[in-house]
């Protein structure tokens, strides 16, 4: 494992496998009456969230506490960023408190790379940067697919599975990390979106593209829905929410095309009735994704900070 976790590309197939195997052990820990181990006692993890994110921040902080690390929380709203302090000064100030890991979330792509250049000793974990990457989300997605298929006796691993990622790929850090992770583990990935919600170039992406969700759904082992943000309408990327739902929403009617073992996933928060119908959301594995997220983030923190290699 590298000194930082900035991109899924930092891990490679072996690194991803290592995180997933270790996460299995932390899932066991989390099932105990007292879900806590002393692995990172004496270590300090700071979450630097320059953008609001309740679920990712809570997930990382829960993971750190279950490993007995101390946790510092920084959120932009209550910080001296409002007093004009620069990003670099903020990072250096927090690090000077003796922090071992910085979990960074920022609305601008690339900020974790900048933070990693400024950090003197702390490991930097990308908690989501702009439209770019969200590597721990991709890891928990891989973990969830593996665990759900194992539970249904459908075999091990993602090799040969067909995953459809549906929706606003262009603006999605989850999609960029998932494409790298699913591809690394041997899955076939199809992006389903109107052309306006795809990146302008897919050169170098190991994916196929579909503009026909109805034709695609029956072939998928996993359908991964992305959140659609309402400002996409004002940017002339879509005519209306209604038309988006009609063409790319996983409506109840459309969900009937799914095979019985097809997993429905979503990184949350869900716009019920837009990208996925409410009843369909309820058959999804979204809450499992959230639960697995804690174990996967425990694995990441342990690999970056733990004394003993997992």
């Amino acid at each position, binding site marked *: 494992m590298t000194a930082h976790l900035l991109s899924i590309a930092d891990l490679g197939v072996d690194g991803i496998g290592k995180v997933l195997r270790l996460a299995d052990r932390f899932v066991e820990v989390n099932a105990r009456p007292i879900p806590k181990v002393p692995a990172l006692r004496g270590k300090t993890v700071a979450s630097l969230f320059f953008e609001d994110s309740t679920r990712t921040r809570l997930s990382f902080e829960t993971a750190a506490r279950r490993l007995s690390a101390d946790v510092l929380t920084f959120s932009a709203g209550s910080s001296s960023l409002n007093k004009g302090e620069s990003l670099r000064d903020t990072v250096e100030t927090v690090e000077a408190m003796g922090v071992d890991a910085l979990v960074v979330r920022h609305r601008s*792509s690339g900020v974790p790379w*900048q933070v990693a250049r400024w950090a003197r000793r702390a490991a930097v974990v990308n908690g989501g*940067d*702009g439209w770019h990457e969200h590597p721990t989300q991709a890891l928990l997605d891989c973990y969830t697919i593996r665990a759900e298929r194992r539970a249904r006796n459908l075999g091990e691993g993602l090799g040969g599975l067909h995953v459809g990622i549906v929706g606003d790929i262009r603006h999605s850090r989850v999609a960029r990390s998932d494409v790298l992770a699913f591809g690394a583990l041997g899955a076939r990935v199809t992006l389903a979106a109107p052309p306006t919600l795809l*990146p*302008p*170039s897919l050169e170098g*992406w190991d994916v196929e593209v579909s503009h026909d969700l109805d034709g695609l759904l029956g072939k998928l082992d996993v359908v991964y829905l992305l959140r659609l943000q309402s400002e996409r309408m004002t940017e002339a990327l879509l005519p209306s929410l209604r038309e988006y739902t009609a063409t790319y929403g996983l409506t109840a009617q459309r969900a009937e095309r799914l095979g019985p073992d097809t997993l429905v996933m979503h990184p949350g928060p869900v716009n019920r009735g837009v990208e996925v119908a409410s009843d369909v959301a309820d058959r999804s594995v979204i809450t499992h994704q959230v639960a697995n997220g804690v174990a996967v983030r425990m694995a990441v923190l342990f690999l970056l900070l733990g004394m003993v290699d997992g």
Partner: protein
Amino acid sequence: MAETLVLRGGRIVDVNGTRPADVIVAGGIVTAVGADLEAPAGATALDATGCVVAPGLVDLHTHLREPGREEAETVETGARAAALGGYTAVVAMPNTEPAVDSAAVVAQVQDLGRRAAVEVAVAGAITVGRRGERLTPMAEMAALGVHLFTDDGAGVQDAGLMRRALEYASGLGVVLAQHCEDNALAAGGQMHEGAWASRLGIPGQPAEAEELMVARDIALCRLTGAPVHFLHLSTAGSVALVRAAKAAGLPVTAEAAPHHFTLTDESVASYDPVFKVNPPLRGATDVEAVRAGLADGTLDAIATDHAPHPPEAKELPFDQAPPGMLGLETALALALSELALPVEAVLALLSWRPARIAGLGATQGGPVAAGRPANLCVIDPEARWVVDPARMASRSRNTPYAGRELTGRVRHTVAAGVAVVVDGEARR
């Protein structure tokens, strides 16, 4: 205070060709050029052995930041950086605060320029506040000697307004220079739109956002007959459009910046805003097209787009950091190192052709001949050096070339008869 100088042992390269000769400078002008000249009493000797003695370089595109952004650069520091880069004249861009959109601001910058190491020509804005709405008092500014007008940093979006500006300017004998960027299509893009922007999750601006305005202004040039100068062209499509316009006999000229023939958008993968610039770093085919355009004369000049920013501005997140790179102290060496062109061709791009476009031909761009104003640079074409931001004379440090080894270095610069750089060190 003009000095008496003798430049010994060099090889003159100017618009008339190449020949070994000494040069004597006195009272601000070149007084003699020839072999083994006898130095006048009290003359300071400058060793030019093994060096090229050339007309001083002329930068069509310099952001001196004064007035308004003196923490980034001043006329004094920018002119010193220019002198170290071999320049004896720079055209100061008008996107200051306030913008150079009135005779008063022109006079202020000209006054600062008179105390600077090199000649500072002032460019005026085309529209008031560079807002693209109303024409500036171009006649009043032209009366003070302003020759180039541009809203650089932004293109004039309104084709009707640009047409009128061209017509009005043609009556004054001045030239409009365009920053080509269609705002609606660029849509806030922070880098070149392509494979890298898509992978890096950064909003891009397509090459076509530049090319649309190049094509539009070529059409307006045809409509009005007024000359147009294209600033910092960066795409293969732009180069092709200008090539065709010149073949059709239209009065267009164009420049390219060193970063557009040396760097690609792949550099942005570091997310270091030192690689953020506008127009953005493009792809490898664009870099090749810019090089070809410089080689075949489609692009008339290399212009630095020297754009200083303080360190804190370049430590913002990539999408919030301001665009711009330093250029004055590295342009000549990059051209000599990276363009496979003979030194005469490089100097044409950096000296006499931009001098003509800037309207500075009377004082700048040579030839090196008795009676001409003494604006000269002495270049050691074999000297190897490593770019070190900490050693730059600019007040800012935002060079994308830190650590790069280059070949070719300025040894001396003589501006208006004064040795402003001697042995690579600034004297003022």
